[in-house]
């Protein structure tokens, strides 16, 4: 560990030059831009800059690219909170409480909570990388298909099991998500599934298009129905809100700690930032004293997913460098970059390329601090957008959504899909179908299925493989307990409520 600290100091001496600081600022700013636009994401930004980096030295190149990634993670939260449109997949869970806060006129507050907690989460992730780099890498190697499956199951269980909502409608939402996620080519059998011989369906239905439709367009329809103007969303720049949020951050230290732990865990294991943010939100709702207020604009509901998202995003850099496991689309592109710069990801990178590895880790500290500051600086800018009349900003958001849906795969067909999911999102909100289970099922459903079927190939169809060693056994058992918990309490509770139901029909409504 001490040698790691030495190495980190060396890293700072590499990263702390005016040239590198300038690159960080440029990267973060560009990242915020691509993060804010739903159609562009960190992968676009990184591929854009990749040709530029061919002529740079690898340390500068990776600093530029990772800074862009941090910027995109920050920017993704902005539109989630202001317009209910997740700019990045991993900021879907931020909409659950961030958008309600914005509707109550607390947009500046929500953005501040989001950015600061994200920054803290990122720092925790980097500290873990710094101190435990070698242990983490060998731990990640222990994950085979059964362990992958158990991690997904755990993330899934901790979100679903602790959620509210009518059980039947939750099941419908989940099944829809799983079903859409299954479309396209099946990795394990190599056959086309549910594509009905339609070429447009070969690539399946993109999760991003679904999210843009369900959340972005669906929410616009709900807003316009209520009245021709944004209600409650105060456009006034509110520095007091920002200060209030900053001052009350320490109160949420439990949420921050929990979110960071979930995030680091999901970043090191193959769960990824998106699943981490959902899992953290689910756990927070269950264990927090404010749990009942989740979904109605509770700051903790913003802090929990944001911390986890960034902690996962940063800690996932370690398996990427030391093993070559791309934790996300962005790191896959960065891996391609490493190859072009003449570096091979692998354990030797830490020994042979100390300047590169530790320069990058040091730059992660600086880049995230710069990220928080720059992101906070954009709050007034974005809050001002809310003061523009809805008759103008509404149509502009529509075009941003549709452009975003198109860029996912460059397919005109996806425009129709986005509109269809917009209508579906509007109707589902009206009828109290929860949307989050659908999204989560789409995100991890097909990966979980692959891992499960790979495990079954290994064990010749026996479920025992999920308890075949202490690691996977523990994960599976906790996941199973999480899943059984609400089932048990639902069974008990159902008998009570069914008595009540005979007296009065279930009361619909928000």
């Amino acid at each position, binding site marked *: 560990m001490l040698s790691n600290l030495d190495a980190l100091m060396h890293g700072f001496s590499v990263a702390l030059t005016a040239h590198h600081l300038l690159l960080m600022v440029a990267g973060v700013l560009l990242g915020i831009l691509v993060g804010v636009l739903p*159609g*562009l994401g960190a992968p*676009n*930004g990184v591929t*854009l800059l990749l040709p530029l980096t061919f002529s740079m030295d690898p340390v500068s190149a990776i600093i530029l690219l990772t800074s862009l990634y941090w910027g995109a993670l920050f920017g993704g939260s902005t539109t989630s909170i202001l317009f209910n449109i997740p700019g990045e997949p991993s900021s879907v869970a931020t909409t659950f409480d961030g958008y309600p806060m914005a509707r109550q006129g607390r947009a500046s507050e929500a953005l501040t909570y989001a950015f600061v907690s994200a920054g803290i989460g990122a720092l925790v992730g980097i500290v873990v990388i710094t101190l435990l780099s070698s242990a983490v890498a060998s731990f990640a190697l222990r994950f085979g298909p059964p362990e992958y499956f158990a991690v997904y199951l755990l993330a899934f269980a901790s979100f679903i099991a602790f959620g509210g909502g009518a059980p*039947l*409608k939750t099941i*419908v939402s989940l*099944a*829809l998500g*799983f*079903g859409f996620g*299954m479309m396209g080519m*099946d990795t394990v*059998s190599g*056959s086309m*599934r*549910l594509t*009905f011989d339609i070429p447009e369906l070969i690539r399946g239905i993109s999760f991003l298009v679904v999210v843009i439709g369900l959340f972005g*367009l669906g929410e*616009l*329809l709900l807003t*316009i*129905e209520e*009245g*021709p103007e944004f209600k409650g969303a105060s456009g006034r720049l509110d520095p007091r809100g920002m200060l209030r949020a900053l001052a009350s951050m320490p109160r949420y230290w439990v949420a921050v700690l929990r979110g960071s732990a979930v995030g680091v865990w999901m970043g090191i294991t193959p769960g990824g930032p998106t699943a981490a943010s959902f899992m953290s939100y689910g756990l927070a709702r269950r264990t927090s004293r404010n749990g009942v207020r989740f979904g109605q604009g509770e700051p903790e509901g913003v802090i929990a997913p944001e911390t986890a998202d960034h902690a996962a995003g940063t800690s996932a850099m370690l398996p990427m460098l030391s093993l070559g496991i791309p934790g996300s689309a962005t790191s896959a592109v960065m891996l391609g970059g490493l190859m072009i710069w003449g570096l091979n990801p692998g354990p030797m990178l830490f020994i042979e390329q100390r300047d590169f590895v530790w320069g990058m880790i040091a730059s992660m500290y600086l880049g995230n601090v710069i990220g928080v500051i720059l992101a906070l600086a954009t709050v007034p800018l974005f809050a001002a957008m809310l003061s523009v*009349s809805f*008759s*103008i900003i*509404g*149509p*502009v958001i*529509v*075009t941003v959504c*549709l*452009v975003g849906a*198109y*860029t996912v795969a*460059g397919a*005109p067909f996806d*425009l129709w899909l986005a*509109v269809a999911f*917009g209508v579906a999102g*509007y*109707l589902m909100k*009206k*009828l109290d*179908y929860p949307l989050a289970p659908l999204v989560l099922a789409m995100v991890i459903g097909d990966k979980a*299925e692959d891992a*499960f*079927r790979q*495990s*079954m*190939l290994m064990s*010749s*169809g026996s479920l025992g493989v999920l308890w075949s060693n202490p690691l996977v056994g523990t994960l599976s058992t906790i996941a199973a307990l999480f899943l059984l918990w609400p089932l048990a309490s639902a069974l008990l509770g159902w008998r009570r409520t069914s008595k009540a139901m005979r007296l009065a*029909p*279930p009361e*619909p*409504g928000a």
Partner: protein
Amino acid sequence: MLRRLHLELGFAACVFLVGLVGLRGTADLDTGWTSDGPQAGFFPLRVSLILMAASALVALNAWRARVALSRVVVVEGEGGARVLRFGLPILGMVLVAQWLGLYVAMALYLLGAIRFAGGRRWTVALGVAIGVTAVTFVVFERWFSVPLLKGPLEVMLGLG
């Protein structure tokens, strides 16, 4: 005016239909669990069946509570009209985009939506339409090299 009962039943029917289509899609897949574990159609079949069963139960629940649910109005006439006035132009934009490209469709949509649905002045509508389209073009095509859907106009101008 739309009552909750009708909407509940209608949406449940749609979900049931989705389940049915899914079921049809598994017809040519192996849906069993062999010594290799579950086959390609194993989960799709079960998900389709669960969808159909759950949506049927939702509909049944709604029907049992029909008296109460038919009293609840979910979409009022005025609000519904606003939704249609806002939503139909979006559909129009997607339709136009299929052959004139996204940029032209976008500009036309913004112009129409801000001028007519929004009731703003021509100058405002024109400014926003041209401005947003131009910024989108520069950001996507020039800065990020992400090509958007183009139509005959862009090709004619030598931009596509």
